[in-house]
């Protein structure tokens, strides 16, 4: 049972404070949405939580213990916290086939597994993200797949080490509107099956409300509002949240006018 906690995270880039005193908790089985406009520091939060960048101050705790920056405990952290990137066209290496992308994380976290077992796990992962026939997909290269198929491969890669926490940085913003719902439903199903803690980073209030339990609204690096999904959307307190909620198309309001 995994709990990932961030306490008072601050990140400065040459005089610009990208993330300002942000605290949040990701628990297994719960989805937290991080909502905000472009440049509000959402993606920087993801990078900090994944230890791709060091926070200027503040700490990140995994199950109550400060996270390691190197060695065996970093490997354990990498196994526990995984990520789905925004752009499925950039997050898969054009030189390698799908099998490589899934087999590497499995091998890294199960060094003693035999080649046959790794291959079976790869096929199983592909079936879990509904990419069938798995044996065919495994031999494809990224450029032979559509955007939605690639994002499913990226999700399978994130699930390969059997993580406890999944960070999804705008996982559907680069996809066609017609397939967004499919990918989001897949993420929701996998989250229930694996009992994952999910941080869903987005700027889309509607999907944030639909798919998450809690919503954090981020504005200029600060969390300006937090609470259960419905109450944040239906009863916004902060001015910025109100603006966001008003900006979303609302057929009822339009009819009433």
């Amino acid at each position, binding site marked *: 049972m995994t709990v990932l906690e961030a306490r008072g995270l601050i990140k400065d880039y040459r005089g610009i404070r990208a993330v300002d005193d942000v605290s949040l908790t990701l628990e297994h089985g719960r989805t937290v949405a991080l909502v905000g406009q472009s440049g509000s520091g959402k993606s920087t939060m993801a990078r900090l939580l994944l230890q791709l960048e060091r926070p200027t101050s503040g700490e990140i705790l995994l199950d109550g213990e400060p996270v390691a920056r190197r060695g065996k405990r970093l490997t354990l952290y990498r196994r526990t916290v995984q*990520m789905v990137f*925004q752009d499925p066209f950039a997050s*898969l290496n054009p030189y*390698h086939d799908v099998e490589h992308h899934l087999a590497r994380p499995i091998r890294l976290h199960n060094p003693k597994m035999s080649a046959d077992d790794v291959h079976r796990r790869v096929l199983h992962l592909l079936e879990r993200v509904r990419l069938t026939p798995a044996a065919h997909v495994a031999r494809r290269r990224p450029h032979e797949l559509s955007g939605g198929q690639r994002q499913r491969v990226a999700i399978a890669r994130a699930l390969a080490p059997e993580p406890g926490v999944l960070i999804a940085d705008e996982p559907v913003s680069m996809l066609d509107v017609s397939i967004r719902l499919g990918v989001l439903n897949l993420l929701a199903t996998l989250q229930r099956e694996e009992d994952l803690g999910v941080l869903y980073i987005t700027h889309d209030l509607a999907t944030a409300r639909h798919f998450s339990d809690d919503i954090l609204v981020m504005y200029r690096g600060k969390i300006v509002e937090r609470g259960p999904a419905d109450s944040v959307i239906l009863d916004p307190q902060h001015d910025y949240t109100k603006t966001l909620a008003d900006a979303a198309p609302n057929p009822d309001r339009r009819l009433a006018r």
Partner: protein
Amino acid sequence: MAANPIALDVPIPRRRVTLPPLTAKLATGLIIGAAIVLFGLIGPLLVQDPSRVSDVGLAGPSAEHLLGTTQTGQDVLAQLAYATRGSLIVGAIVGVLTLALSAFFGIVGAYAGGWVDEAFSLFTNIMLVIPGLPVVIVISAYVADRSLLLVSVVLAITSWAGSARVLRGSTLSLRSRDYVLASRVAGEKRWRILAVEILPNLIPLLASQVVFAVIFAILGEAGLSYLGLGASDSFTWGTMLYYAQNGLALRLGAWWWFVPPGLMLALFGAALSLINFSIDEIINPKLRSQTRAARRGWRMSREQLRKAKESTL
């Protein structure tokens, strides 16, 4: 919701190696290049001693001497065979050294980042602004006994910096790609990310840089030798031209003495350039649609071709 169906009737592709498509351009380059390399490899085993003098000086091509003789009666064909081998050795040594130096200072520096990148980049820039030919002339003039190896090393040291900068630029762009970050998140080791995730995507660029380095080395060596600053112990195309010049081959009309090495230089340079163009078309697919062959592939008429050409001018 199911994903888009994947076509079942398409056969599973086997793992492919990244090779350029065999266009007429590439085929011509490969055939000429391969013929010259074969001649350089096998030729010296079949001909007589290139330094053996005889009484028939400055004779034109005949049955006995297929490419005639030099002023001192040495067989030009024999010299050409040994010279081809010499020039190719220079090209090979410089190619390998340039690859190693530019990959180390360009790729490793850019990937490591921080002060390592700063230091490597500074060193590369210094090497880049050192004027190559004068330095080569000074070094060659300073060392009396010049071997082929020494000349190659000098050429390599003065020529790797340009490719290092090109490689550094590409590596900087590749290292921040999402798929590299994804491998870090997966827990890959740093050296393995460089070797398995980044390096394969640099292969076309590396290949084109090496081909360019080989052309530069062979032409540079020929220039040095022509000035009398080349290797003193072996034949190359440049030394042949140097001796032909000293023997007044041009004024005496002994075309069989200076045309063969000159032609070999031109042909080999052209062959490598053709190969390089084909590799460039992989790196930059935009170049592909600029060629006439590609336009003809779209079944354009002569008239349409003319218009297309005008519009790109």
